[in-house]
């Protein structure tokens, strides 16, 4: 079966883990990896795994986009360079999956709103943050039953799984995730907290979701909705697991989750890495399926 050819921009933890996820996809094929450091471990590994590589940034990829029929690019660089990367590739008709906190395109959490983005033929979709991917499905599972006045999420990450980009820009992580709790999760107000824990052996990613409903929560319907949503996420992140809850205190609904990764590039504790790359891959697959079925055709974006 024909596959849609992909480029990966950024040769760090996320980019490297994406190679494994995309190679496993029935509809995607990783062809290029883009870095900026010719000696980086990520580029070396990509070459070993059969990808073409450039250390010249996105400009090193551009001359090959049309010849190699690249249609989807994953950007795992930083918010600062994403906008330029996106503009250059969109002009060539390449659709962007943005894994940085740049969020210039609409925010995507696959089980909540991926379908809408594919129908609209968006040329840039943003994957928010690892904490967003892990928690927003649950906020949405509550808000689709009854209105949520406020939702708060707490993500605990193993120190070894948090790269230098996230560390140096924690505020962006906080703002992007808090905003997505509202926009995608459906809560009227949102707040995100991140904790980086250095315990050895490393702790598996943990997430706690609190929702305050306007009216007394319907325990049975909310519980059912949450369990159904967890099943949806488990389709692409098998290690997504309910540990405790939902538990109800007045109008507060609390859910305690654990996210184990597949252990592709980083070990299983780095569920935060996996849920990001798995969600990005799932998003790309949806677009790829539509392209392959002839339902949508990506178009070059004209820029003024």
């Amino acid at each position: 079966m024909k596959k849609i050819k992909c480029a990966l921009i950024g040769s760090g933890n996320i980019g490297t883990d994406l190679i494994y996820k995309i190679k496993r996809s029935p509809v995607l094929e990783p062809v290029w990896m883009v870095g900026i450091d010719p000696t980086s471990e990520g580029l070396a590994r990509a070459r070993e795994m059969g990808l073409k590589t450039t250390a010249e940034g996105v400009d090193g990829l551009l001359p090959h986009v049309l010849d190699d029929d690249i249609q989807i690019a994953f950007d795992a660089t930083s918010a600062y360079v994403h906008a330029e990367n996106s503009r250059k590739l969109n002009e060539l008709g390449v659709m962007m999956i943005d894994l940085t906190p740049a969020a210039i395109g609409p925010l995507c959490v696959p089980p909540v709103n991926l379908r809408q983005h594919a129908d609209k033929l968006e040329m840039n979709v943003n994957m928010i943050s690892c904490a967003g991917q892990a928690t927003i499905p649950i906020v949405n599972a509550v808000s689709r039953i009854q209105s949520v006045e406020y939702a708060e999420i707490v993500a605990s990450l193993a120190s070894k799984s948090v790269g230098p980009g996230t560390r140096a820009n924690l505020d962006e992580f906080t703002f992007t995730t808090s905003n997505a709790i509202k926009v995608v999760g459906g809560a009227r107000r949102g707040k995100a907290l991140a904790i980086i824990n250095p315990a050895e052996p490393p702790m598996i990613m943990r997430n706690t979701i609190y929702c305050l409903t306007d009216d007394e929560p319907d325990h049975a319907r909310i519980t059912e909705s949450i369990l159904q949503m967890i099943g949806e996420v488990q389709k692409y992140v098998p290690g997504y697991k309910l540990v405790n809850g939902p538990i109800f205190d007045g109008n507060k609904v609390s859910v305690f989750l654990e996210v184990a990764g597949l252990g592709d590039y980083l070990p299983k504790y780095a569920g935060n890495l996996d849920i990001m790359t798995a969600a990005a891959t799932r998003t790309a697959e949806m677009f790829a399926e539509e392209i392959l079925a002839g339902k949508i055709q990506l178009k070059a974006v004209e820029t003024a």
Partner: protein
Amino acid sequence: MMSQSNTSSSLKGRKVVLHDMCLRDGMHAKREQISVEQMVKVATALDDAGIPYVQVTHGAGLGGNSLQHGFALATNEEYISAVASKMKQAKVSVLLIPGLGTMKELQSAYDAGARSVHVATHCTEADTSPQHIAYARKLGMDTTGFLMMSHLNDAAGIAQQGKLMESYGAQTIYVTDSAGYMLPDDVKARVGALREVLKPETEIGFHGHHNLGMGIANSIAAIEAGASRIDGSVAGLGAGAGNTPLEVFAAVCERMGIVTGVDLFKLMDVAEDVIVPMMDHIVRVDRESLTLGYAGVYSTFLLHAKRAAERFGVPARDILVELGRQKMIGGQEDMIQDTAMTMAKARGLLQGAAA
């Protein structure tokens, strides 16, 4: 006749800056329920007693108002501006933990009158603070890098983390014994290692908790090793068994000839007449707060664990020991209820989840 014996004459004449935590760490002991009026009353009394720095925020600092950490009676800005406008000499400081508080909140705390900040990270995660430390310096604030749970990193590691914070712009580096677990030798080793690597003009501070009754001894050990700033709280109003009781510490300093510049008798009066009557429970070393110090658990977990114990029928001490075993750190208050629920299930006290 009683003579003022100076057994540690080596510290005679050393200047130490005291930083009161009643209105920040003390918020934990009050479940964040200190009113604006109470804050003003406490802060003006401390100001009058000559305390140079008074920390004023939600117990978890800027951005702390949350389901995770509880909601205070007023916003941080309301507390800060009410207090700052009444200070004659004291500076108002705030706590900022990256991942919870943001630079936006630091700016608004500054606008409300805060002029000093503890930028706090776990003792191995200093590299989550560069933006916030740099921003505080840009605002012209007295800027501290605050290494929480310092017992979980060795002296060389603390020195390296402190050096990072200094490189971001921090003017003072704190060894922070959040669990009240450290003993004087532990404090000396860490402060000493910092003193060796930091620039001479960079100050060192110590923030103690009294869970093993070592707050004062540890603070003196820190000064011996080169610290010049000490956090404490009058009457010990703080998380766990409280902070180093500041009036007691001031008395010890006076005996040793350490210069703090505060009025000891006025400080004693604030403790007895203002702070103790405010306490919901007498802040002291009891079974649970001793467990914190013994097991190396974040002091703020105390009241959360007691609440979880009541609800799920698992003793607070068992929950705290388990949290220590799992190496939970500051900020992971959600894991207290989670751990209590998991333990309650294992003991047949709670039904398992449906999934």
